């Protein structure tokens, strides 16, 4: 399929990705999916590799996440989360599922408990896009080492202590970088609280 051309630009205006998801949901539109894939799959793979996954594993896992994105497209609710946030939640839940399957091979993968919801709870529809844009912006402004700590917090499949070891840093340093990063990004949010 010729859908693999890079359309990363579409992702930068924030809106297009949500429309693409809607197109996949409505008609199983493969071209729309190809665009989503071109933007998100390499990013999911990128964060997984930063978290210590091998090239092959990260490639496989990114594909697995994108399979779920396709299959669950109808469950996506644009009023509740940006596409990036929803796909983050899919990736996170896929990781939790994998851990649970490893611990209990017989477990029904669709068992309802314990996987946090994929669609976050916000109901402030109109503020959502602005907020997510501000969050993205705030993340780009973080010092590199804080951004790294935050990325590993959300995407590395290992405890903070193992992350610290891999980075050759004391655990306290990793935790304080993460705390500082979250505090900075959070300031962006407090703006429209009350």
């Amino acid at each position: 399929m010729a859908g693999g051309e890079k359309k990363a630009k579409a992702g930068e205006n924030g809106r297009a990705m949500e429309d693409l998801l809607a197109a996949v949901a409505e008609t199983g539109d493969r071209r729309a999916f190809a665009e989503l894939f071109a933007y998100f799959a390499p990013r999911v793979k990128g964060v997984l590799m930063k978290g210590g996954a091998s090239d092959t594993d990260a490639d496989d896992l990114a594909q697995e996440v994108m399979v779920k994105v396709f299959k669950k497209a109808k469950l996506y609710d644009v009023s509740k989360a940006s596409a990036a946030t929803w796909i983050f939640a899919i990736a996170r839940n896929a990781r939790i599922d994998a851990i649970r399957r490893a611990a209990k091979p017989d477990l029904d993968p669709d068992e309802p408990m314990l996987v946090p919801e994929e669609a976050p709870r916000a109901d402030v529809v109109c503020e959502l896009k602005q907020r997510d844009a501000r969050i993205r912006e705030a993340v780009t402004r973080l010092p590199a080492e804080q951004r790294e700590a935050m990325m590993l917090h959300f995407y590395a499949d290992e405890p903070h202590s193992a992350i610290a070891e891999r980075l050759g840093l004391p655990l306290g340093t990793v935790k304080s970088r993460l705390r500082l990063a979250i505090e900075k990004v959070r300031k962006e949010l407090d703006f429209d609280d009350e």
Partner: protein
Amino acid sequence: MSNPQHHPRYETLADFAAGRLDEARAVVIAAHAEVCEQCARDIDALEAIGGGVLANAEPAAMSADALEKTLAMTGAQIMPAQADERPRPASALDAYLGGRSIDALNWKWVAPGVHQHVMKAQGYRDGVLRLVKFAPGKGVPVHTHKGEELTLLMRGAYRDALGEWRAGDIADLDHEHTHEPIAFGDEPCVCLIATSAPLEFKTVLGKVLQPFVEL
């Protein structure tokens, strides 16, 4: 119910949002978020940060045939919109209770005025989830925590050196805290407690009680 006054530490919410909590503690946080708008919004924002990190991530080139393989794996199957519509978090606890109400559980006596119901929470990572019911005036002997403990007040109230706790409140304690919660009021206090390691009792009574309480 009035809004909860005691919340999880932000660090705990950040671990929940990132999928880092053991199963037992994840259930407790989910149940609290159900009744606490503030924490639900914090979790929501943390998830959005996870999305923001993804949008900013440096891409790593996918293998050449990755898209074709992915499309093949989907089998062009899209789940219907309602497929995933499950009742929300108390749901997580409901699944553990097997549809029974708290009153209908098979409560086990552990000490005068103290009963508990232990639930397996082994989905991923070690953790224990239990409901503990204290008659007014009863409580847990002074103890501290080796691992991390989360307690959600389900019914009634208790007080300890840190304050008063009522339905919806969370006690997010770690090894720095020592406490001795005592139930008060007219009805028994029911707590949902997640522990990721055994509690450490500080009194002789506690040490004697420990094997029974299994806390």
